[in-house]
């Protein structure tokens, strides 16, 4: 619920914070049936009374910075996962505080004092073996009572499969598990790992590891210092723009170097040296190896938080990123695919998207339908796929046969078509009339009368300059596709 912490959220009205899905909601909105992770459109339909705010991660990170600093004062080596979620290794602190219970209670109490007066600021603390179990222990805690898990495997075995989604994605795999009758992590843990590996590959093995409490193995090998990157500035960087540019540049350099070494970072240490003050450090952690975008985002959030909270007095004179946990997992290039170029493609498409807007960089997927324009469902590139409205595997009798027209107008275009004794004779293309050499059709298209659609006839018209798909309805002709 950390998403609710923001300066522009009305304090006494129902609020819904969304990106593509719900990331935060007030009690009254939750009471209307909205749940976290629900698609935005569904949530807006269920709670039309709520003020909808688009999630601002940089803003959330800025508010989270004092929380991280406070926890860091209690327990060193804090790892920030995302604004609102952080991990701390507690092995040493447990001895200092005299047990896990007192430690958790102490941390929760201090955090409450800092954030409880704000919406979304309740502190939930969980302790378990491994970050994955600890994250869900915190999710099942209350602000009054931290959840200290004594039997991690037993705790995990009761969790629903959907808990895997946040850590590893794998929507299709989770659906397949459910279809096979597996609904909890305990059910999954009882399956043989080699069988999962052969059926689902690496994601299957990772899911099994998480469900058996192994979590992501900590990579203990020594990381060569030359893999880190740093920049020094003669003129201290004080403006946000300059800091952001330097951060992005450094993130790109780090990942380029790591790619060449065949590894990817799960955890990085960001260090900023202030001109008149202490050196600031923060560890950021990611369940998946950091991509360029993910690391750049985190650099931006962190540096912005430091600059805006006066954490780097006098500006930044040195900036560095050091990988603290590397993984070779997932870096194996496929034989027939070029994974390295995928990163460059992502960068290129992100730039195109920045120039044109998100609605202009698209990916299509097949769906069912009778007309060519109906058979593609569009999603914005880089965003979750839009759900299909019609099943592409259904038979769709009466569908326009292949080959499909290569050009399909977004809406039917009126076109002039002349008839001779009930047969198409001429079609107007631009300023000239072209004789129809031959045609096929009419094929009847029954409209959805309940939605106000009329019946129509389809024709494939062949002229000397090409072929066209036309729809004729109530005596008017429309262009539905060009066989270009």
């Amino acid at each position: 619920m950390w998403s609710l912490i923001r300066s522009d959220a009305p304090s006494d009205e129902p609020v819904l914070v969304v990106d593509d899905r719900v990331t935060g909601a007030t009690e009254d909105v939750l009471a209307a049936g909205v749940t976290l992770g629900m698609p935005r459109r569904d949530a807006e339909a269920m709670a039309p009374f709520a003020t909808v705010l688009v999630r601002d991660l940089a803003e959330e990170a800025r508010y989270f910075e004092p929380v991280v600093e406070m926890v860091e004062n209690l327990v060193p080596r804090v790892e920030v996962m995302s604004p609102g979620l952080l991990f701390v290794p507690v092995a040493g602190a447990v001895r200092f505080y005299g047990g896990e219970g007192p430690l958790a209670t102490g941390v929760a109490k201090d955090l409450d004092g800092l954030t409880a007066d704000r919406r979304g600021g309740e502190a939930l603390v969980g302790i378990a073996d491994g970050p994955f179990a600890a994250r869900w222990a915190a999710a099942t805690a209350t602000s009054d009572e931290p959840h200290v898990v004594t039997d991690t495997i037993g705790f995990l075995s009761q969790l629903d499969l959907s808990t895997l989604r946040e850590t590893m994605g794998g929507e299709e795999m989770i659906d397949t598990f459910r279809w096979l009758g597996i609904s909890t992590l305990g059910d999954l843990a009882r399956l043989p790992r080699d069988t999962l590996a052969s059926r689902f590959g690496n994601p299957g093995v990772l899911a099994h590891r998480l469900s058996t409490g192994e979590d992501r193995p900590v990579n203990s090998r020594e990381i060569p210092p030359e893999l880190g990157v740093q920049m020094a500035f003669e003129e201290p960087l004080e403006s946000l723009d300059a800091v952001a540019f330097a951060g992005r540049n450094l993130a790109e350099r780090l990942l380029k170097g790591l790619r060449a070494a065949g590894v990817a970072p799960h955890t990085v240490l960001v260090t900023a040296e202030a001109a008149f003050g202490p050196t600031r450090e923060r560890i950021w952690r990611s369940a998946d190896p950091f991509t360029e975008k993910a690391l750049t985002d985190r650099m931006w959030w962190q540096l912005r938080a430091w600059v805006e909270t006066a954490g780097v007095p006098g500006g930044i004179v040195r900036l560095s990123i050091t990988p603290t946990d590397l993984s070779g997992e997932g870096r194996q290039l496929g034989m027939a695919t070029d994974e390295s170029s995928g990163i460059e493609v992502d960068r290129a498409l992100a730039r195109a998207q920045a120039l044109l807007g998100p609605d202009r960089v698209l990916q299509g997927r097949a769906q069912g339908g009778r007309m060519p324009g109906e058979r593609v469902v569009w999603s914005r590139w880089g965003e979750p796929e839009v759900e299909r409205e019609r099943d592409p595997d259904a038979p769709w009798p009466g569908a326009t046969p292949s080959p499909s027209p290569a050009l399909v107008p977004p809406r039917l275009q009126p076109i002039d078509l002349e008839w001779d004794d009930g047969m198409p004779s001429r079609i107007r293309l631009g300023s000239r009339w072209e004789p129809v050499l031959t045609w096929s059709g009419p094929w009847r298209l029954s409209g959805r009368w309940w939605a106000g659609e009329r019946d129509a006839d389809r024709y494939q018209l062949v002229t000397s300059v090409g072929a066209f798909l036309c729809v004729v309805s109530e005596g008017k002709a429309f262009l539905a596709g060009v066989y270009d």
Partner: protein
Amino acid sequence: MGIDGVTSAGFAADITASLSPQYIREEGFLHLQPGRVTELIGVPGTGLTRLGLKLLAEPSRVAPVVALDTRGWISPEAAWETGVLAERLIIVRCDDPILWPKVTAALLDGVRAVYAEVPARIKDHDLRRLTALARARRVAVVMRSMGNGLPTGIAHLRLRALGVTWEGANRGHGKLKKRRLMLEASGRGAAGITRRFEVEDEGTDAVRVVSDVVVDQVRRAVGRAGSRSR
């Protein structure tokens, strides 16, 4: 149209195996070369959009490919039919002649193969810079001008549609089934010799060269005093 036997009913799938060296040479025109620009010339309806998308099929097997759409009309369904992998095809829509060179440059910086419709009012020097960028990045590019064609010196290979014939539809009966597109290849990619050949498209990914119609004239593409091609 065509050569005896080539169009007979028994003629099927892998045509290149039985083709003479002449046909195999023409088949090479349907493969993109890294760092080179292939220009498609012809009015809408001749089948060049489908041919341009078909040229992306091979690169899509190793990396994502992009179709740059100026009208918002390109249908990915046609691309999928020609063998482009659905999850590797990204459609970028840009009809603004000011933004188009910037967007294209951004794409050439990371994508391996691009099919680009070129808006009418793009300046020649922008196209030359983009061609140089494509060469430097070794990006295979197919361009189709929405105006009067590309300026000279841009395209390595020019494929001009001379005519299209359809089979399958007959005065209300049947359906469009097979298209035969007559193309003329010219430019450095055709070794400076203008060649004419036919490709056959049955709505599947097997777009095939079926005949070398005639080599009617030998011209030097390089050094010709050329205005814009049409």
